[in-house]
């Protein structure tokens, strides 16, 4: 309190009183210092805990992702089994293809229908362009070179496509 101090200064204060005041202030300062140390240590620990928890979370997520794939891969081994059979008998490729597609479908992975659709970079990756004679084929997918896939509503892999370019004859 500044007011108080001024008053005190104006008065003739005994040496005793000043000493007491100094002592009290020293004590207060020590309390403050101690508190500061405590709060800082607490703050540092809280922050370190947060960082360590985040590291732990990242590690766990990595492990989770690594092994979450296992169930799908296990199902995919069926395809390998079938392919091994097919190699022995030189047959059944179409059926294996359907089997694989079914596994993918069960995991929300579906094929993107591209041919004849308007080129959309959100779904397609243009690999080649082809000149077309019909104007309505301009900027349309004229050939699906490698199928694209969705996982649920997100693009897992865009389709690689050939896109029609209509050249106006001059």
């Amino acid at each position, binding site marked *: 309190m500044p007011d108080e101090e001024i008053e005190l200064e104006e008065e003739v204060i005994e040496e005793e009183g000043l000493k007491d005041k100094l002592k009290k202030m020293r004590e207060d300062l020590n309390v403050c210092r101690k508190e500061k140390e405590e709060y800082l240590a607490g703050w540092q*620990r809280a922050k*370190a805990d947060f*960082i360590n928890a*985040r590291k732990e979370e990242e590690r766990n997520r990595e492990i989770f992702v690594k092994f979450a794939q296992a169930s799908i891969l296990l199902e995919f081994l069926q395809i390998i089994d079938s392919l091994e059979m097919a190699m022995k008998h030189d047959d059944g490729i179409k059926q294996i293809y359907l089997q694989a597609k079914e596994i993918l479908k069960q995991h929300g992975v579906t094929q993107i229908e591209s041919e004849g659709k308007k080129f959309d970079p959100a779904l397609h990756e243009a690999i080649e362009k082809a000149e077309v004679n019909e104007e309505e084929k301009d*900027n349309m997918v004229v050939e699906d070179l490698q199928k694209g896939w969705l996982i649920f509503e997100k693009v897992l892999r865009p389709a690689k496509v050939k896109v029609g370019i209509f050249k106006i004859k001059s």
Partner: protein
Amino acid sequence: MPKILGIDLGTTNSAAAVIEGGEPKILENEEGVRTTPSMVAISKAGDRVTGLLAKRQAVTNPENTIFSVKRLIGRKFTDPEVGRDKKWLSYKIQASANGGVEIKIGDKWLRPEEISAMILQKLKRDAEAKLGGKIDEAVITVPAYFDDSQRAATKAAGEIAGFNVKRILPEPTAAALAYGLNKKKDEKIVVYDFGGGTFDVSVLEVSSDTVEVRAIGGDTHLGGDDLDQILINYLVGEFKRTDGIDLSKDALALQRLKEATEKAKHELSTTLETEINIPFITADASGPRHFLIKLARAKFEDLVRDLVTKSIALTRETVTLSSPKGAGFKLSEIDEIILVGGQTRMPMIQEEVKKLFGKEPNRSINPDEVVALGAAVQAGILQGDVKDVLLLDVTPLSLGIETLGGVFTKIIEKNTTIPVSKSQVFSTAADNQTSVEVNVLQGEREIAQYNKTLGRFVLDGIAPAPRGMPQVEVSFDVDANGILNVKARDKATNKEQSVRIEASTGLSKDDIEKMRQDAEAHRAEDHKKREAVEIKNQADALIYTSEKALRDGGDKVPADVKSEIENKIAELKKIKDGESIEEIKNKTEELSRLISKIGEALYKKDAGGREAEYEDVNKEEKKDDNKS
């Protein structure tokens, strides 16, 4: 508090990061990817697409797909660099009214900063979506060689995108910030940045909290893409040689080969050989053709050796030549080397850099992300997030104690942020053991004796009890200054003993690196030893419980079972201190199967009258299971 975005605006790819909880973190874009292609396009319908989508449509729309705009920003049209780039860019450029560059996109002529702004806008939009709030401020990085005009143009790009640009930061400085090297005193740092399309080397000097760029060098047309191209050309050549078909004429085949090549290049960073397998790559009159080539790391290294050597020579020049061509330092004067750019994952580059400086380069932070992370650190400093007192250290090596059989049991793993406290409960290894010795260790080896002992003490006065019964809690506490306190407390008597170790983090970088490498080199052998110890410990414990079970319930066990068990115990005892681990393991398993007969015998004896009671006991147990 709104965040300041840290942005690495790259020639081929860009990335954005923010400070979260005091640590920089890369933000994924809308497509869920951590980097965004620095590309912009106007589609035929007049829509603007940026990033990955712009890249996907580039083939159909080359004249309206703008990439590498960073090569043009802030330059005069008459700049020889612009003249050189003009030849290979697929879009049109011309001189603007004030002598700068203008780019044709759609039906407009735009300045490079307007194109860069579109990339920045996408980064801003995606970051806002990710963080759920508006972001108006940014720190943007530029190459160290950018002059005032290029920096001003980059800043203008940020402003057009709607940012208040708080700082334009040199990329190598950002990398140094990401590694926290700005806190070091009077250090000389070299940043070796092998990006997708450019190679930059910078020499920095840190003094009293400022980072100064002392020299810059590099090659604006040398990058990871060149290495890819060499590899693709080689593979196309190989296929032509073996199958007589030129794949370079087939767009899809080339695209598939490109992807497979990139994957192979990544794999060769960790393995010595990889297989590039692309079934049905093409077809000719005789039917489908498959692409299958084994590629050794050594072969890849041979193919690109010239480029790597060139980068090393440029690095040497930039460090050693006198000003203005270089920093005029001795190679041995360099304190730290930082690797930036995805291509620096290549072991050969790491080796060559190490050979040049005779030091291990810093590469713990993802080299594709380190610049953006550093920009975020700068942003954090500006927004006052990163206070000095809250710049926390990590434990460079694991801390723990020696346990039964000389095994090192980690209590605090390496790279844990400090201050931290962790505890674990241990027990005694022998009956009526009244004291335990706590040997505090630091290191990564699984066997205690190969690690460094920081201190040891004895906790005595443990009440006599069968082995495994007493509970001794050992707690480790590392404070913010790296001072380690280890305390052991007997939970029954509350007696405790502790040791304080000051120098738990006071190892030099070289020592730490040496210890880590040592652990890596001995990993397999240590693991085997540890497993052996564990098997022996298991055998030991099983002998103990078997003998105890026979003592306690032996009279109820049929004599033949009893003697069989006794024989097995004797057999196991004979071999348990030997070296044939497999045998100990087998005998332990046999004994383990056998002693369940004791239980069987006991239950049979008690069966009948007390059946109801068992059921209750089981129910009780189940309840307990649910709790735990």
